[in-house]
């Protein structure tokens, strides 16, 4: 059976935006051989009630995997210290952080099955000169990490491309 859905939208419908501020994006890289030890260390970090707002990673054949972890700003120093400890030698240059950061995330109908959604978000921000720290799209959600200073302009730009439900 085939079902055909056609979207009829001047602005892409969403189920609403959520925003969080007071965050830090901690970034590091790790080789595939270090993955098991890295995982053990991150598990131990989780024992101390630290949480994450977003995690992302990208690996290339020719380079170590690059990781990003969005945490509350009050956990920034602790996260950096513990990651440096886990990663060992050379980690002080490897682990870096950007703060204060913010997060805008939203989801909408069948976002994961439709082309053009990420394009609309990225184009809205790039055309307005809003730099992002990270973007993650999976399932029906889009997560955008930005410098906190750009949150207002990002919200404004995204509101032109995406429709937020009326309250």
């Amino acid at each position, binding site marked *: 059976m085939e079902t055909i859905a056609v979207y009829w939208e001047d602005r892409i419908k969403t189920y609403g935006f959520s925003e969080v501020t007071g965050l830090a994006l901690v970034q590091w*890289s790790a080789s595939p051989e270090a993955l098991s030890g890295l995982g053990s260390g991150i598990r131990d970090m989780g024992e101390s009630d630290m949480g994450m707002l977003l995690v992302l990673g990208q690996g290339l054949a020719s380079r170590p995997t690059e990781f990003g972890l969005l945490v509350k700003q009050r956990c920034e120093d602790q996260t950096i210290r513990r990651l440096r400890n886990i990663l060992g030698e050379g980690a002080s240059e490897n682990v870096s952080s950007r703060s204060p950061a913010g997060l805008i995330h939203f989801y909408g109908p069948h976002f994961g099955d439709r082309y053009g959604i990420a394009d609309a978000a990225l184009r809205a921000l790039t055309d307005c000169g809003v730099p992002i720290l990270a973007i*993650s799209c999976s399932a029906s959600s889009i997560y955008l990490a930005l410098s906190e200073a750009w949150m207002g302009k990002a919200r404004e730009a995204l509101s032109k491309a995406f429709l937020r439900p009326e309250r």
Partner: protein
Amino acid sequence: MEKIRIEGIKLIGEFALVNLANHPRHQYALSRTCSILALNRINLPFISAICGSGRSQASCCVGVEEQARVKALLEEDPELTGYVEIVPSVGLLSVFPHQSSLRILGLSLHALGKAGLTVHGLTSSLAPLTFVLDHAVLDEAAAALEVFLELPPNQRPIRTHFHVTQSPIRRKEEPPNNR
């Protein structure tokens, strides 16, 4: 060792992974990539990108049947030539819910690393924590995770057998900016 209870593991694929790295204008390059693919009605079910640092990288998935077309489209673009790398056969493995838990993230990375599996990408969203792995090892990866994560009784990792695509059908009277 006590296992962490989760609600499920989902396996989806097959996809091709498009990596973008070392571009001097990374956000612009990623946006351009997404625009080219949107213009050609190619969906991106997974994107993970870090921008704005000296170590900017991006990964996105396209349907494996679109691989040749995507490669041609991106390689013929003068702004992207030389920055694109394609991994031909990957799948997505999602653990849910992640509960914003570093324990679940850490155990998952540990399990996959211990099994010697390559993680090409990962990201979290509302509930799932999604890993990009070689398509051929999805079942092996799920088994490795089940050593540390406990599924509900009588539940096995779910493999989705349907694929949704947005129809290219257009209507003459649709709004000019319709997506």
